[in-house]
């Protein structure tokens, strides 16, 4: 029988702890497929965050380090500076990257650190049970914004790609939505581009992926995907924010 679909080599043959309908499983797979296609599994070191993806070191079949909350870009910097011919990526959520780790991500980007960042934005803290994130939408109800995020009290969501695009350091910044086949393929093409940037030494690359969290949003999986499509993309428009000029 012809094999038409199989587990990427760069993923461990194990179950994940992710909830039904969560985007992390798909995003792990996209990153692993890209590692396979680029033939970099053996020379890649990944950095896992604190948050829902904390156990990513059990899921990727490559060397991994687990970082303190928000510090993944600093840890990745240490690895890359020590071993500049290896491929280094971080895998971070919105609380990790855009709240407690804001300084680390901004300065890794400003230095043009030659690493790749996979940034999963689901507008909420998942692992701790659904608290308000730096990317929580105005009016969105969470455990710590039970009446909806009130800008008078809690300010506004941070647009990471747009913010980092003001810097000279990054080579590639893009945002995709995990909503349908077309957009999932687009997310994968961005991830591939981001790793290619690192392989050709062009410096910091980041792909932000808008991802559903049905459990903490209190929605059915399909409704969660629709919420990404209908609500999140209004605040976080998908697209490429920075890429090298042709020629």
């Amino acid at each position: 029988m012809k094999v038409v679909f199989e587990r990427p080599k760069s993923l461990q043959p194990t179950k994940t702890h992710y909830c039904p309908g969560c985007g992390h499983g798909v995003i792990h797979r996209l990153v692993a497929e890209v590692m396979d296609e680029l033939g970099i599994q053996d020379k890649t070191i990944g950095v896992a965050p604190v948050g829902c993806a904390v156990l990513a070191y059990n899921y990727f079949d490559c060397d991994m380090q687990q970082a303190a909350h928000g510090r993944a870009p600093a840890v990745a910097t240490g690895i890359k500076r020590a071993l500049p011919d290896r491929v280094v990526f971080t895998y971070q959520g919105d609380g990790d990257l855009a709240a407690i780790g804001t300084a680390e991500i901004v300065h890794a980007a400003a230095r043009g650190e030659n690493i790749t960042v996979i940034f999963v934005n689901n507008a909420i803290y998942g692992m701790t049970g659904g608290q308000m994130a730096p990317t929580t939408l105005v009016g969105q109800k969470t455990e710590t914004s039970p009446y909806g995020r009130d800008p008078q009290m809690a300010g506004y969501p941070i647009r990471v790609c747009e913010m980092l695009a003001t810097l000279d350091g990054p080579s590639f910044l893009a945002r995709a939505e995990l909503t349908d086949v077309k957009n999932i393929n687009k997310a994968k093409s961005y991830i591939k581009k981001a790793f290619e940037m690192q392989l050709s030494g062009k410096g910091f690359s980041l792909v932000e992926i808008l991802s559903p969290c049905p459990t903490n949003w209190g929605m059915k999986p399909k409704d969660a995907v629709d919420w990404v499509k209908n609500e999140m993309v209004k605040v976080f428009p998908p697209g490429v924010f920075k890429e090298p000029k042709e020629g």
Partner: protein
Amino acid sequence: MEKVLMKGNEALAEAAIRAGCKCFFGYPITPQSELPAYLAREMPKRGGVFLQAESEVAAINMVYGAAGAGVRVMTSSSSPGISLKQEGISYLCGAELPCVIVNIMRGGPGLGDIQPAQSDYFQATRGGGHGDYRTIVLAPSSVQELVDLVYDAFDLADMYRNPVLILGDGILGQMMEPVVFKERPARQLPPKDWATTGKMGRQKTNVINSLYLDPVKLEEHNLKLFKKYQEIEAKEQRYEILNGDDAEYFVVAYGICARIAHAAVEMAREDGIKVGLIRPITLWPYPKKAFEEVLPKAKAFLTVELSLGQMVEDVKLSVEGRAPVYFYGRTGGMVPTAEEIFEEIKKMRGLS
């Protein structure tokens, strides 16, 4: 071997390069600034990495990444900056990563001042971050010893897969003394087969981690660390006893304070007081052996520190009530004179 005149901070930096330090990550703070400046100049010329981080927090996490990748790595700072690194130090200990962390102590608490102090003793020896862990703490008292201990620090870190702190102070970092960089035979150290270098043909993935969600597993891990700490306590206590042979009284002091205390001991000797000096070189493990050595003949101990009494607790824990323990300290960047300490030695004799 050529003798050169060097500032403590610069000598430390040079020794680190010679000890095989490949990466340095740091953040500017007084009074250790000459150290990163030296490495910023020398590392690129000698095949190493110097990177100024955006914060102390980032710097210690860069250390984590590079240590996990298997290279010799160092960071340096001074008291307030070391406080910021505590989260990272806890993770480094949990993940068992070797590295060298330099603290050129200044006065605290808070922003304090930029004058020499020894008030980070508790933080260094009790583990300033969260969790059940220990760091090896080395306390040099001269620029030469600072240099020698840098080599030992890297070796101890690799041998035990544990961070090593070098605890200096503003005087030691800033003063110039003649120093010799001795060639040292490479020590036999365990291979870093745990490092995340990329699999590079390896079957199994290497993972650097301090998370053990199952309490059974975390207890096992902590007990494994504890066993390592017990081994370090048994094997690595270091100290020096000066004027100890016929001594009835002992001053206990470390770092730059021990230099001043030694002058006071010499003054007391001229005055006919039989006093010696115990100078701990490792602050953790604390050199309890030194006390066992002198306790049969010791009538009393006087601990002198640039703090209001931190190491004195370890002195009491070592003496265990077998002799009186007195204390004298200055704080906030003030440094006692030998005369001041001499007066305290006389008081000790009068009291016991």
